[in-house]
C-alpha cells in the first residue's frame, strides 16, 4: 500500500476491526512522507530494520508469545545445543537471547513472504526482464474477484516450476509469473474471501497470519493489504477448519 492511499486503505480494510486512531493516522501520514526521505517507531520515529537473514528466522522460530513493544527487549529461552569438546559430544543448555528487534524483522519478512498478495494483472513481466506495474490494470471483474486463483503471492515464484505442462499451457507468461493463492496449504483453507458492502469490496483475510487483510474494489484500481496484529502465526489452522 502506498503512503498516498493510506487513508483510503484503512477505510477499506476496516472490516477486520483493527485500524488506527485518527491521531495515529495523522502522525503516520506525516512520518511516512519523511520516511521516504530518510529513515526514523511510534509512528513518528522510524528506525531502519535490518533485512532478515535465515539465522534470524531460525532463532525467532523458537520464541513464542507476544511481542513486548520494546525493540530492545530480549527474549530468553533455553536450547539444547550440542557442544563439541574434543572427542566428546554432549549437550548443554544454552540460554539464547533473541532481541525483539530481530524477531520483529524476521516476522515481518515471514509475513511478507507468506501472505503479501496482489491481484492478477496488476503486475506484468516483460521479456526484457523487469517487472512493471500495469498501468492499464482496471481491476478484477466480480466473478474473478471471488476466486482465489485471481490473486498471487507477491514474491518470487516457488511453485510455478512444479506445475505440469498442461497447467502451464493455460498460463499467460507475462501475467502469471507468481504463485497463485489456489495452491496454498491447506487447500481451500488458509484464506477467507468475503464480499463486503454488497459486492463492492472484496476482502481477503489470511487465516495463517490473523490480522492480515487484503482488500480490493472490483473494477477499480484500488487494492492493498495491511497487517495489524500480534505477529504470531496461527499454527492451529488445520484444527480450525
Amino acid at each position, binding site marked *: 500500500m502506498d503512503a498516498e492511499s493510506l487513508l483510503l486503505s484503512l477505510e477499506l480494510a476496516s472490516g477486520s*476491526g483493527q485500524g488506527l486512531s485518527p491521531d495515529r493516522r495523522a502522525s503516520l501520514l506525516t512520518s511516512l512522507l519523511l520516511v521516504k526521505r530518510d529513515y526514523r517507531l511510534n509512528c513518528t520515529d522510524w528506525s531502519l530494520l535490518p533485512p532478515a537473514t535465515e539465522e534470524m528466522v531460525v532463532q525467532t522460530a523458537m520464541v513464542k508469545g*507476544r511481542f513486548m513493544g520494546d525493540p530492545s527487549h530480549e527474549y530468553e529461552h533455553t536450547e539444547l545445543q550440542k557442544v563439541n569438546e574434543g572427542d566428546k559430544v554432549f549437550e548443554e543448555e544454552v540460554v539464547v537471547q533473541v532481541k525483539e528487534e530481530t524477531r520483529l524483522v524476521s516476522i515481518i519478512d515471514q509475513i511478507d513472504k507468506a501472505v503479501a498478495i496482489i491481484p492478477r494483472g496488476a503486475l506484468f513481466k516483460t521479456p526484457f526482464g523487469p517487472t512493471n506495474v500495469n498501468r492499464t490494470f482496471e481491476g478484477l471483474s466480480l466473478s474473478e474477484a471471488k476466486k482465489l486463483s485471481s490473486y498471487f503471492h507477491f514474491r518470487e515464484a516457488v511453485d510455478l516450476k512444479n506445475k505440469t505442462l498442461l497447467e502451464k499451457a493455460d498460463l499467460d507468461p507475462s501475467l502469471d509469473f507468481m504463485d497463485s493463492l489456489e495452491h496454498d496449504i491447506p487447500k481451500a483453507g488458509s484464506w477467507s474471501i468475503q464480499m463486503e458492502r454488497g459486492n463492492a469490496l472484496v476482502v481477503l483475510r489470511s487465516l495463517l497470519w490473523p490480522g492480515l487483510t487484503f482488500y480490493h474494489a472490483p473494477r477499480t484500481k484500488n487494492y492493498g493489504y495491511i497487517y495489524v496484529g500480534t505477529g504470531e502465526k496461527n499454527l492451529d489452522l488445520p484444527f480450525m477448519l
Partner: protein
Amino acid sequence: MGDSPPNPEAPSQQQSSSRRSSQVSERQRSREPSQSQAAFPDEGQQVLLGAQQINLRWSQGGNLPEDENLPMFQAEEGGMGGMEYQPMSAGFPVEFQTQTYLDESGTQAGEQTTSLMQQLQRLQQGQGGFFQQLESPTYPGANVLGQFSMYQRDDPQFMQNIEHGPYLRDDPALHFSPSELGFMNFGTEMPEPEPRELAVQNAKAYLLQTSINCDLSLYEHLVNLLTKILNQRPEDPLSILETLNRTTQWEWFHPKMDTLRDDPEMQPTYEIAEKQKALFSRSGGGEGEQEMEEEVVETAVPNIMETAFYFEQAGVGLSSVESFRIFLALKQLVEQQPIHTCRFWGKILGLKRSYLVAEVEFREGEEEAEEEEVEELMEGGEVVEAHGEEEGEEDEEKAVDVVPKPTWKPPPVIPKEESRTGANKYLYFVCNEPGRPWTRLPHVTPAQIVHARKIKKFFTGYLDAPVISYPPFPGNEANYLRAQIARISAATHISPLGFYQFGEEEGDEEEEGGAGRDSFEENPDFEGIPVLEMVDSMANWVHHMQHILPQGRCTWVNPLQKSEEEEELGEEEEKADEGMEEVEQEVGPPLLTPLSEDAEIMHLSPWTTRLSCSLCPQYSVAVVRSNLWPGAYTYASGKKFENLYIGWGHKYSPDNFNPALPAPIQQEYPSGPEITEMSDPTVEEEQALKAAQEQALAAAEEEEEDEEEDEDEDLED
C-alpha cells in the same frame, strides 16, 4: 483484386475496398473535406494513414531512411486539411499533429523534412505521386502486427517522384504477403496506372478479413488499439503493447453495457443495495407521516455513532459508514422485536461471511412466549423418543431371551440456566450484513460451553453449518457461536469500578439467598474515574458478567441430586455435603471482581491498557484490550464506557492447540460361565456316545431277558 480497375476519376460507389483508396485519391486531389463522404468509415481512412504514421514513429529507433517517410505522410495530412482526425488527434488540429511528429522524429530528419515537405506539397498536385509513396507504407501497415523491422529503401527514388515499378524487398517474409503477390502479378501483366493503389487495396482487403471465430477483423482491432493508444498516450507504449493488445481484445468482447440492460454480475450488489436502502427509509411510512415530536421518544437503540467515535479514537472498530449501517440495522431490529434494551455486541469474522451480533433484553414477559414454543418443539421430540424406547423395551421383555441390559448410564445432563440468568442473561441476535434479517440465537446449554472450550474452529458464516470436531460438538454453528459469545462476554465485559453496584444487601452475606450477588444495578452516584487512573491500575475495572464455571454454568448445580433444588451460589458455600457424593462444588470469582485478580497468561498480563492519544491526555480515552480474547476492547471516558468485540471468536493460547484425545477403549463385557459358549461335540464323540448308549441298552436288555428267564424258571418250578 486487380479485377476492378481503379477509377480514380469517377467517384465510384462500389463495394470493394478499392473504392476507398480511390476516394482517397479523389479527396487528395480535390481537397474536399471528407465530411461529405461520411458514408465511408472515415475513421478507417484516417486510421489507416494514422497507422502508417504510428508505424513510422515506432520505427524511429530504426533506420534513418524511415524518417524520410514522415514528412510524406504529414504532407498528406496537410493535404487533407479538412478531414477531421477525430480518433487520432484528440482535438489537435492537423497541423499541430504534424508538428509533434516532426519534433519527435529526432533531429536527424529535421532539416531534411522541411525540404521534403516543400517538394511533396508540390507532389500533391500531381497525380500518381501519392500512391508511389503510399506503396511502401501499405506494407508497414500490413506488417504492423509484429514486424517492426523495416526494410531498406532507396531514398533518392522517393524524392524523384517518378512512376516506378514495384520495388523488390529484402525481407523474405514479405514475399508471403498476398497483396504483394497480387501486386507483382499486376506489375508484370498489365501496366496499371496505379499499381500502388492496388497494393493498398489488397492490403486493406486483407486486413479487413474477419476472422473465423468472430466478427472482429484485424483492421478494426488495430483501429481500436491505435485509437486507444493515441488517446491515452502511455509512456513507453512498446513495452506495454502486449497488454494493450489484450485489453483491446477484451474490450471488444465485453463492451460497456447499455444502461438499459442489467449487468448480471452486478445483480447481487444491487439487491443488497436495495435492502440497505430500505433501512434508510422510515418505518411505517404508509401510516402517514411521522411527526417530528414522535421521533424524540427514547428508543432502545443505543447511540452507535457515539460509541463508534470513541472506539475510533482507540483505533478499533469498523468504518463510520459501516457503523451507521449497523445503527440502522439495530433500529430495524428494535422495531421488529419487543426489545427493552439493546446493544451492539460486536462482529465475529467467519470464513465466508461474518456475523454482526446484537445483545438484547426483551421486555418482561415477552420472551417467555417464544421460549415456550421452542421448548415445546424440543419436548415433543423427546416424548416421542421416550415412547419409542418404552415400546422397544416391552418388545424385548416379551422375547424369550433377555438381552443383557447395559450398565452404562450417560452422565446426567446438566440443566441449562434459565433465561435472564447467568450465561443466558441476554438474548443474542445475529445477522450477516446490515439489511439482512436478524436471526435469534438459541440459549446456551452448559454442555455446549464445556465442549466449546475443547475445540477451536473457524466460523463459516452460515448458522446451520455443522461443527465437525472431536469431541463432537452438540449442536450446529449457531450453538457454537452462542457458546463463544457467552464465553467472551463472561470473560471480557468489564466496567469501571463503581459504575455498577450491588443492590441493597439482604441481611447477611452468608445466606444463600443473597440476590445481590448476581444482579447489580447502575450506581446513580457514579462520578467517573479520571482517565489516567483508569489506565494505570487494573483495579479500577471490574467484571460485570458472571464467570462461567467449569461446569458450564454460572451457578453451580449438583448433577447428582435428583430433587430440584434452588440455585446455590458458587462462592462462600459451607454447606457442601448436601447429598453430593463425589462431585465437588465449583467455585468461581464473584461478580464485580476487579481485573487485577485475573490470572496471567504465561508472563503476560491478561489486559493491556493505554491512553488513546498520548499527545493530548486531557481529551483521550482509556482503552483496555484483552490479551486472552484478542479482539475484545473496552473504552471508558468520564461516565461512559462500552465493550466491543471484533475478531475471529477464539481464545488466545500461547501453546498450540491440542485436540482432545479419544476416549479410552471401553471394557468388553466380562466373560463368565453363563455366557461362555460350550463347544459342540464332534461327530466321533457323538458316534462314540451313541455306540456306548446302544451297548448300554443292549446290556440292559440282556439283563432283563436274564431276569425274565430267571423269573420264568422260578415260576416253572
